[in-house]
């Protein structure tokens, strides 16, 4: 790399003081736009015709030298793949092994220097999105300073088969923003046998993903034999933010048991925007209306939290429901809780202020997703709460000012759970107490 210093006959030199050197560099710059960018601190180097080289500005030079000598050599010497991420998720530094990894085409979050890790997680292919979402949550936790270090498993598939790796994310606290170092260790190439019954549906737009340990409360309550019978022929699918599982009046061909995904039940009134009336996560299921003899959906079921769910054919579910008293019991219990939630939401939408409703809604979402960080746009929140976007902005700003949440470009982090509970309306506690709680 040719990092030139000015020729000796052209004073002042860098060692005569950064300010003088910078002032001299500025005099080399012509053009309004160039001068604006220079004065705004957006310039790294100025081209010098006399020395036919790029003259680095002092701050760019020190940043470059600070990362290029010992630190970079040490990183390069490591056998594993390592990169450093700034507070926005941009990869600002990577070692040789990481650069070699991302140079190869393929899956598995190959984020180059200058690329954004969080954006890559958001744009991960469907088959990886469950892992990518979890990884993004961990990254945000570390970058926000909430966690010092986290480890995540990441599995992906390419033409050579399935691969698994462990990503360790460790905070690098500095004077200002927190950076993170990500280390990628391969835990081997694996080709797991396809579990019985887990087959990809040709018509499904949702990818079949590897089964994970079940956390859905309805399924957990079943006996092993009952669970095996119900899930025979089922597939674990990735539900993505914005997917619509049913529209009102649509035949429910499948039911869904969310694992770490979250689904909103929206009611549509002519001439108005959709309004959320219920929220279902791992404590329940989507399509329970089938059990009461209906075949069509009465609401729009919209995925608002990306994750996985177990997808079962409606006919098979109904057959099992009629022969399995245990499933009947847990389903009725869930439906009772959902009724409480829906009726309380109706009253809440009518009587409570937006700020309290937003606090309630964030708590319910966090509880069902088992995470204090999630991504939601203002337009989406406005739909969920049945208010205009400006109402959401005001309410979110108020909660942020009270340091209860952090809201930045759609990324929401709950900073103070107890404070947010105090700020929420009584409906949150009422619904919890009356039965529909995911902690049961």
């Amino acid at each position, binding site marked *: *790399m*040719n*990092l*030139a210093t000015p020729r000796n006959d052209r004073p002042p030199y860098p060692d005569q003081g950064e300010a003088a050197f910078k002032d001299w560099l500025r005099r*080399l*710059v*012509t*053009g309004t*736009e*160039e001068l*604006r*960018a*220079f004065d*705004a*601190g*957006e*310039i*790294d*180097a*100025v*081209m010098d*015709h006399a020395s*036919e*080289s*790029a003259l*680095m500005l002092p*701050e*760019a*030079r020190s*940043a*470059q030298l600070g*990362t*290029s000598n010992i630190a970079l050599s040490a990183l390069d010497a490591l056998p594993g793949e390592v990169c450093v991420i700034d507070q926005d998720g*941009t990869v*600002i*530094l990577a070692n040789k092994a990481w650069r070699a990894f991302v140079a190869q085409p393929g899956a598995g979050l190959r984020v180059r*220097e*200058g*690329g*954004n890790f969080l*954006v890559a997680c958001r*744009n991960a292919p469907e088959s990886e999105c469950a892992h990518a979402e979890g990884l993004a949550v961990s990254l945000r936790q570390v970058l926000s300073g909430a966690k010092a270090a986290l480890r995540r498993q990441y599995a992906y598939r390419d033409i050579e088969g399935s691969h698994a790796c462990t990503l360790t994310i460790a905070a690098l606290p500095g004077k200002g923003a927190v950076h993170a170092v990500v280390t990628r260790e391969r835990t081997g190439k694996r080709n797991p046998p396809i579990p019985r019954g887990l087959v990809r549906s040709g018509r499904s737009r949702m990818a079949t993903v590897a089964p994970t340990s079940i956390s859905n409360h309805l399924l957990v309550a079943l006996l092993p034999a009952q669970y095996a019978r119900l899930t025979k022929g089922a597939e674990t699918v990735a539900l993505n933010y914005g997917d619509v599982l049913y529209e009102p009046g649509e035949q429910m061909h499948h039911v869904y048991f969310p694992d770490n995904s979250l689904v909103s039940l929206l009611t549509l009134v002519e001439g108005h925007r959709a309004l959320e009336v219920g929220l279902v996560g791992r404590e329940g299921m989507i399509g329970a209306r089938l059990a009461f003899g209906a075949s069509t959906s009465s609401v729009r079921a919209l995925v608002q939290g990306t994750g996985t769910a177990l997808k079962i054919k409606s006919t098979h579910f109904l057959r099992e429901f009629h022969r399995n008293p245990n499933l009947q019991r847990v389903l009725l219990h869930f439906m009772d809780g959902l009724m409480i939630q829906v009726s309380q939401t109706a009253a809440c939408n009518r009587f409570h202020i937006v700020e309290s409703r937003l606090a309630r809604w964030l708590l319910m979402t966090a509880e069902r997703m088992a995470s204090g960080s999630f991504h939601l746009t203002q337009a989406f929140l406005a739909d969920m709460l049945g208010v205009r976007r400006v109402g959401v902005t005001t309410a979110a700003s108020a909660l942020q000012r009270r340091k209860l949440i952090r809201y930045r470009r759609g990324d929401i982090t709950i900073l103070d759970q107890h404070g947010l509970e105090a700020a929420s309306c009584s409906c949150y506690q009422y619904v919890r107490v009356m039965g529909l709680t995911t902690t049961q």
Partner: protein
Amino acid sequence: MATKRKPKSRARVGTTTVVTMRLYVAGRAPNSVKAIANLEAICSQYLQDGYKLEIVDVCEHPRRALDDGVLVTPSLTKLSPTPGANVIGNLSDTSSVLAALGLSPALSA
């Protein structure tokens, strides 16, 4: 470093014209890293498949920058379609980058 980055393979409707750009950066200096990240984000959102981007490191290839009339880095040059345009700085102002590339924010929808 004079690397050519290929656009993502995701097929998206919208743009049919390929925008050819060249970004001059100074190694891994902070503004240069930001400029690459900002430009890639803009390209993936607004241009999808319809762009070609060449990144030239002026520390490695100062002659190229001088021959092309580049005075400071980071500096983005739109080569085609005409008219050409330049944007100076770390490209954090999305609207000015879009204006230089002849794009309107409405295209993102």
